């Protein structure tokens, strides 16, 4: 967790140093404790997982959820690992999310190049049409798409999910990049054009390099959003080989004979990849969420 704490934030610059000279009041200490208690309440369920994932089934049955395990016991984790093909699910999730984030960024760039730089006619409406992908509830999509993918043999194939989420994620990308490119400095474009660059060349060698920071934020977002998706993957991925991490856990949860410690261990293991992204991308993430908020 240290990586999170060490990430520098712009808050540094706004904190006037002279404020610190005055001693902290009792109220301020109380407010700090309130903020910390709130944060503890947020991580509390995850701490409970950690506390209980390493108990043996007998230990779990006899002790309260808040008690420390008698000794570190890996039964739950071993059972989860042996009965479930977690590495396969992990690979499926990584493959799907990576493909979606790469392709969706390319599609967003192409769309927004035409809309933001090309200023094609009716662009407001075109953006709205792309945004429909974000507005439509997924129940509207799943039955027709299920039949479509069934017909072309894509069911239980990761590409059914990839294709679908490329469209859904690139809606946000198109919206964000179009408004960004709408204010792109024209001097740069003119200079490139004077040098004889074609449109495709300008896009590749001028616009994409300048947009790179934003594009990497978008990619991180598309990755995590796709990783967390539930309903459409549930509909399209039906074989045990094609499950993603959330689907695997949900399936385990639905099985009656699942032992509680196995379920807790599985949940804990499913949380780990998320925590890892979070530590890696913490700074990109917080920069990214605010990128979309206000132009």
């Amino acid at each position, binding site marked *: 967790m240290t990586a999170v704490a060490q990430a520098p934030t712009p808050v540094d610059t706004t904190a006037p140093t002279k404020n610190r000279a005055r001693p902290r009041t009792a109220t301020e200490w109380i407010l*700090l404790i309130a903020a910390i208690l709130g944060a503890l309440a*947020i991580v509390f369920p995850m701490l409970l997982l950690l506390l209980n994932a390493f108990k043996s089934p007998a230990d779990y049955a006899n002790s309260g959820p808040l008690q420390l395990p008698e000794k570190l016991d890996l039964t739950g984790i071993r059972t989860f690992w042996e009965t479930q093909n977690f590495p396969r699910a992990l690979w499926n999730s990584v493959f799907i999310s990576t493909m979606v984030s790469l392709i969706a960024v390319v599609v967003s760039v192409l769309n927004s190049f035409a809309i933001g730089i090309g200023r094609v006619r009716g662009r407001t409406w075109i953006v709205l049409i792309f945004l429909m992908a974000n507005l439509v509830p997924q129940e509207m999509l799943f039955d027709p798409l299920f039949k479509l993918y069934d017909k072309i043999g894509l069911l239980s194939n990761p590409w059914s999910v990839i294709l679908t989420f490329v469209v859904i994620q690139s809606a946000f990308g198109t919206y964000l990049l179009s408004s960004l490119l709408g204010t792109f400095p*024209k001097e740069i474009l003119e200079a490139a054009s004077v040098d004889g660059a074609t449109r495709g060349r300008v896009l590749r060698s001028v616009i994409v390099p300048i947009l790179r920071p934003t594009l990497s934020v978008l990619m991180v977002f598309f990755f995590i959003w796709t990783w967390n998706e539930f309903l459409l993957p549930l509909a399209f991925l039906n074989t045990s080989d094609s499950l993603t991490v959330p689907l695997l856990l949900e399936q385990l949860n639905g099985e009656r004979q699942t032992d509680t410690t196995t379920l807790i261990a599985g949940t804990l293991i499913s949380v780990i990849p998320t925590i890892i992204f979070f530590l890696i991308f913490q700074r990109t993430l917080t920069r990214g*969420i605010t990128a979309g908020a*206000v132009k």
Partner: protein
Amino acid sequence: MTSLAPRTRPRRTDEPARIPQRDSSKLGYWLYLIPGTLLVGLVIFYPIVRNVRLSFFHWRGGRAEEHFAGLDNWIALASDHEFIQSFKNIFLVIIAMVIVPTLLGLIIAALLFDVVGRRFGARLSSFLRATYYLPQILPIAVAGVMFSWILKPNSDGVLNQFLSVITGSTVEVNWLGGQYSTAMASVMVLMIWIQLGYPVVIFMAALQRVDPQLYEAAELDGANWYQRFRAITLPMIQPEVFVVALTTTIAALKVFAPVFILTNGGPSKSTYVPSYYAYEEFIRGTDKGYAATIASAITLVVVVVAIIFIRVQNRAERKEA
């Protein structure tokens, strides 16, 4: 390839950036829209057209024949008790996904920024902000399984055991399956838990835009914290409040997974939300035409709400300008 110099064109000063063209047509730009348009047509508009059409038919699914139903499905929907119940639940979902997180988010963001960030150090405040944000990136299926473990009925459940220890007597509440009030409350708690970090992060970023001198001036004038919050903070971060309200309201109208994972719509369909109802009808119902009607109705509501929001925002912006 022949002329490198841009053609001279009459140009207005507010004209946006544009690559000077060799030919005056913009046809070339349309080519870049082809992949995106094909994809959105296939994945979004083909299903929309199919489902809206299907909403005027009765269809058992599979190889059964479709029977034209006119407005039957839509009329039935208007008096469908389960559908109305599911829309009533949406108001509770809006409380849990929009109102509570936005209000709490304002308070926490101000607390982290004003008090923790300025008086106890930026590192601590950014660490706490990250903690509040963590549930946002946790797969909802994982969060749901975690909560249903905590809320298990009988003496097995974490929460029940916890309450037993506090009260000293055995507590065996069937939180999710027992009755509507505890089931819906559990779903709402999960939603608040997931949603809270989003406004916190957005509002804290917004607060950084506010000129600290404004606060210092207000402080010198003897304004207390609440007065500063109302007179400076709130008006300054209003655009962000708006964006949060818009995006979370749309998410609330479409909500599905928390209900699916925690309660499966139960007990006895009382925690249905519209999306869950549509899903159930598609999977288990006998008339896919009716399921398509529910899904179309949700889509309609979402689009109308989005348009209203955007109009209100545009009007507010124009007033400011």
